């Protein structure tokens, strides 16, 4: 942008200098300071060397600064004389700027502002291509091969999300963290605030227990103690030495389990010799920094080449050749992007409607003030002076409205932030900051100019001294009526589009939530239980602990049944394994179909009310039976493997199960594992004890008679009492989990609903304004008609005809617009077509009703016109 705005002769030299200065500052004084300096430098350079310099100068000649300030004062004075008009205009602008500012505050850090790392555009995720053609995480050996062979990547870091318990006798806390390769921070370009990053030696199997803390954790739990480096903290019962603390500016965007993002960092500690570092152990997230000056496509081409070499060298370890190099920002905002863009579009429509309304108000006022303008022109004011004055008046209005709007945004933003899906990254950066204020100010100025210039054109055209002095300011030229009618009809059209969109989203959400997830979510309480630390080093102690928790919870009055499971459906937590049938061997085991793996203790099927279609349930005797190794498949998985659900007795290979072959003892109904709108119904249920390892965390699922707070607390207390050193977190009802899985749509619906309501009010006010104005102007005509025998019905029809004519035109145009626009909502819709006729008709009826209501007040006023008064006044 800067380059384009600079005059061509200076461009290269100045931009080059700016870049050089930036690089120096970034090295010496840090990235943030350098960025501020850069913008300041750029602004000054623009002021001196703008390509628009000549244009700017001509503007300044016509309107010198001092006279403009005088105009501003004059504008403020005039507006004080018309408080009703000023109040309505300011409020309208506030109602548009407020939501716009709030939405921009959310959109900016996610979609526009670069991620808070130096040269963040160079950062990308590396994914392998899975059997379904989609990106999948990467295995450690593959990652090492990429590190060795890729010449176009400056560095590649590996991360893996983790959770650990901060072992504190009084206040144990479950924390989200990242296991990172030693070069993680240097790949991102982040420096520690205290201490240092990990060394290569620390990132090895059985390496020293070291840890880096986030600024937030350091402040919250360690009192921002500047002497913390070198001291030990206890995590999961193990002592770890703090080697560094990250700066407050570090904002984690990569952790997949997310409350506040990752709060601690420990070394990954992998080596190719470890069994879980194999090629097919695809569970690592790879972050790459692409070399400066290298195009991403070129880097990707090199990765694809490496992938092809690996596939031919290890044909049984890869399902498909090819890799993905996805820009970091694109990847971390992927989930939120469709909803945010839709909401941004919606708020733009609200803004347009509001601007239409304010311009309309201004036009009406210009008509009334035509006498004033005619006199000014007669006294020698040029068109430019007049324009300047009107823009100044608008600026006063827009500034007042804009300030009110920013205050509104500031007040509502916390509410909005709470509605964002909780996996949204960069939540902390969602606030009304300098960037937002600059953008809002620019917007307010544009609005003010539009608001001022449109009426100014009108004022100049109509302000003939002659007519004014003779006609005493009476008016009625058709051109201004046409403009105002056009504006109101457009507002209605825009309101129609918003209303249709909001309705579509609302119906999508209700259809989505009406879907049977395959289990009964009502009266289910879920809690995350942990078993970390030296007491739970052996798997048997973990399962025994969970059995004890289950027994305790089952004894709580009001509890019907309970089970533990390693991941919860629809929670966003996914644990997938390739399943092979014994009687259908595959040449390449990597092509085995994926199923969501659930490791179970207790009566999961009874507790969640998942239907059992064939065979029997898992029971207590199955735990530890590694000979038969009983498992239950979902009907979907059974059909994928054998094309039928009559599969009891068949055997399958389950990676990580202790037995090589597991026996199918039952077939369960399909459940929605990942999302309500996705049908990946392959699932396999395995007794926890028959797995080759135990995770430290599991989800306790409890069927209760009700979900009263007292009962939930009783369940929590019973579970906690078994081992008070283990924290219990994530207490949620299953209903809440299901609703949260539709979080993105919920947010979009909420905002579209608010915006559509706002649009209706504004459009209604627009119609009202135009009709009220026209009734006032036509007082004499209406009086005359009444005097000549027009009935009240005739008079009402006169007003209604005009109002409903406008409404019909607006609704018609809005329908066309809605059909064109709602295509962009498609990814947010579910089970309903963007052109759903019922929705379109319903929206039209609502708008028509609003139009009728808006017509009634001016119509009543027209009825009350006393013919005698009206004629005498003229």
């Amino acid at each position, binding site marked *: 942008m800067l380059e384009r705005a600079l005059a061509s002769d*200076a461009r*290269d*030299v*100045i*931009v*080059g*200098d*700016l*870049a*050089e*200065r930036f*690089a*120096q500052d970034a090295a010496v004084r840090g990235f943030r300071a350098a960025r501020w300096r850069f913008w*300041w*430098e750029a*602004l*000054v*350079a*623009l*002021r*001196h*060397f703008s390509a628009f310099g000549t244009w700017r100068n001509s503007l300044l000649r016509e309107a010198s600064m001092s006279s403009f300030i005088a105009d501003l004062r004059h504008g403020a004075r005039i507006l004080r004389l018309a408080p009703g008009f000023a109040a309505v205009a300011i409020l309208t602008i506030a109602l548009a700027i407020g939501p716009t500012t709030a939405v921009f505050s959310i959109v900016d850090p996610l979609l526009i502002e670069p991620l808070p790392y130096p040269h963040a555009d160079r950062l990308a995720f590396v994914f392998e291509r899975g059997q379904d053609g989609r990106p999948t995480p990467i295995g450690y050996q593959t990652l090492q091969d990429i590190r060795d062979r890729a010449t176009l990547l400056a560095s590649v870091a590996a991360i893996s999300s983790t959770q650990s318990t901060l072992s504190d006798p009084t206040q144990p806390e479950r924390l989200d963290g990242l296991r990172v390769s030693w070069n993680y921070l240097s790949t991102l370009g982040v420096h520690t605030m205290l201490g240092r990053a990990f060394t290569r030696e620390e990132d090895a199997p059985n390496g020293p227990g070291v840890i880096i803390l986030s600024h937030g954790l350091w402040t919250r739990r360690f009192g921002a103690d500047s002497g913390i480096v070198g001291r030990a903290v206890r995590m999961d019962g193990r002592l770890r030495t703090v080697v560094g603390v990250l700066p407050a500016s570090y904002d984690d965007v990569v952790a997949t389990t997310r409350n506040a993002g990752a709060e601690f960092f420990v070394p990954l500690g992998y080596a190719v010799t470890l069994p879980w570092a194999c090629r097919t152990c695809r569970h690592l997230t790879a972050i790459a920094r692409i070399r400066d000056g290298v195009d991403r496509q070129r880097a990707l081409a090199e990765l694809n080449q490496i992938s092809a070499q690996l596939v031919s060298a290890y044909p049984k370890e890869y399902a498909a050749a090819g890799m993905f190099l996805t820009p970091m920002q694109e990847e971390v905002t992927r989930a939120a992007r469709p909803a945010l863009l839709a909401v941004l579009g919606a708020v733009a429509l609200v803004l347009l409607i509001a601007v239409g309304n304010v311009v309309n108000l201004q036009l009406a006022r210009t008509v009334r003030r035509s006498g004033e303008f005619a006199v000014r022109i007669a006294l020698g004011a040029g068109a430019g002076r007049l324009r300047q004055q009107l823009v100044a008046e608008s600026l006063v209005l827009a500034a007042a409205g804009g300030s009110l709007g920013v205050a509104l945004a500031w007040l509502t933003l916390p509410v909005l932030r709470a509605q964002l899906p909780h996996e949204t990254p960069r939540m902390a950066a969602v606030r009304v900051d300098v960037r937002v204020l600059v953008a809002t100010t620019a917007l307010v100025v544009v609005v003010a100019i539009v608001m001022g210039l449109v009426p100014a054109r009108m004022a100049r055209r109509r302000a003939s001294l002659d007519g004014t002095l003779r006609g005493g300011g009476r008016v009625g030229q058709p051109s201004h009526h046409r403009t105002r009618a056009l504006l109101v009809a457009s507002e209605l059209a825009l309101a129609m589009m918003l209303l249709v969109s909001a309705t579509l989203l609302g119906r999508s959400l209700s259809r989505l939530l009406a879907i049977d997830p395959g289990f009964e979510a009502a009266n289910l309480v879920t809690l995350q239980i942990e078993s970390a630390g030296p007491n739970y080093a052996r798997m048997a102690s973990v399962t025994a602990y969970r059995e004890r928790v289950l027994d305790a919870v089952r004894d709580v009055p009001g509890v019907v049944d309970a089970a533990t499971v390693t991941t919860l459906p629809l929670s966003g937590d996914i644990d997938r394994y390739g399943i092979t049938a014994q009687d259908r061997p595959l040449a390449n085991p990597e092509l085995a179909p994926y199923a969501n793996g659930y490791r179970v203790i207790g009566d999961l099927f009874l507790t969640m009310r998942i239907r059992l279609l064939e065979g029997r349930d898992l029971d207590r005797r199955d735990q530890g039976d590694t000979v038969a190794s009983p498992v239950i498949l979902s009907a979907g998985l059974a059909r994928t493997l054998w094309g039928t659900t009559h599969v009891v007795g068949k055997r399958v290979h389950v990676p990580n199960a202790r037995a090589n072959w597991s026996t199918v003892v039952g077939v369960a109904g399909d459940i929605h594992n990942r999302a309500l709108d996705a049908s990946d119904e392959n699932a396999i249920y395995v007794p926890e004890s028959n797995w080759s390892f135990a995770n430290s965390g599991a989800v306790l699922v409890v069927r209760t008679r009700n979900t009263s707070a007292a009962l939930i607390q009783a369940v929590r207390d019973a579970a906690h009492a078994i081992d008070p050193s283990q924290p219990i977190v994530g207490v949620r009802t299953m209903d809440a989990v299901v609703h949260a899985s539709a979080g993105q749509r919920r947010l979009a619906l909420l905002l579209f609903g608010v915006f559509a309501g706002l649009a209706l009010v504004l459009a209604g006010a627009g119609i009202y304004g135009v009709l009220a104005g026209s009734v006032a102007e036509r007082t004499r005509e209406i009086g005359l008609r009444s005097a000549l025998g027009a009935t009240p019905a005739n008079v009402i029809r006169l007003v209604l005809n005009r109002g409903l004519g406008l409404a019909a035109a607006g609704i018609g145009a809005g329908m066309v617009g809605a059909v064109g626009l709602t295509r962009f909502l498609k990814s947010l819709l579910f089970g309903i077509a963007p052109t759903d006729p019922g929705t379109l008709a319903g929206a039209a009826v609502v708008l028509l009703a609003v139009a009728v209501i808006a017509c009634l007040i001016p119509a009543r006023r027209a009825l009350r016109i006393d013919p005698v008064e009206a004629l005498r006044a003229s």
Partner: protein
Amino acid sequence: MDTLGDLEQVVLLAVLRIGRDAYGVSIQQEIASRARRDLTLGTIYKSLSRLEAKGLVASRLGEPTAERGGRAKRHYSVSAAGRRTLQASLSALGRMAAGLDVGLEAP
């Protein structure tokens, strides 16, 4: 003969001091370290282009370098007229300051 503004003097002196390698960033740094004035590049270029229009400095386009993202530099040097004007300007200042008991003697 032209008279020089304070900013123009500072910029001219900086170009003279640096010699062959005088361009935007180096001039900015020279002024920052000697005169302790934090000028923006835009201000410096504005001044340089005015000086160039008066014929007091000359400039030529240099080679592009990597740390500038492959963009060229513009190198500046003081012309003979520039030296004369600067000299006149400085000695005028010196004469004005001479004899005043405020520690303002010309260097």
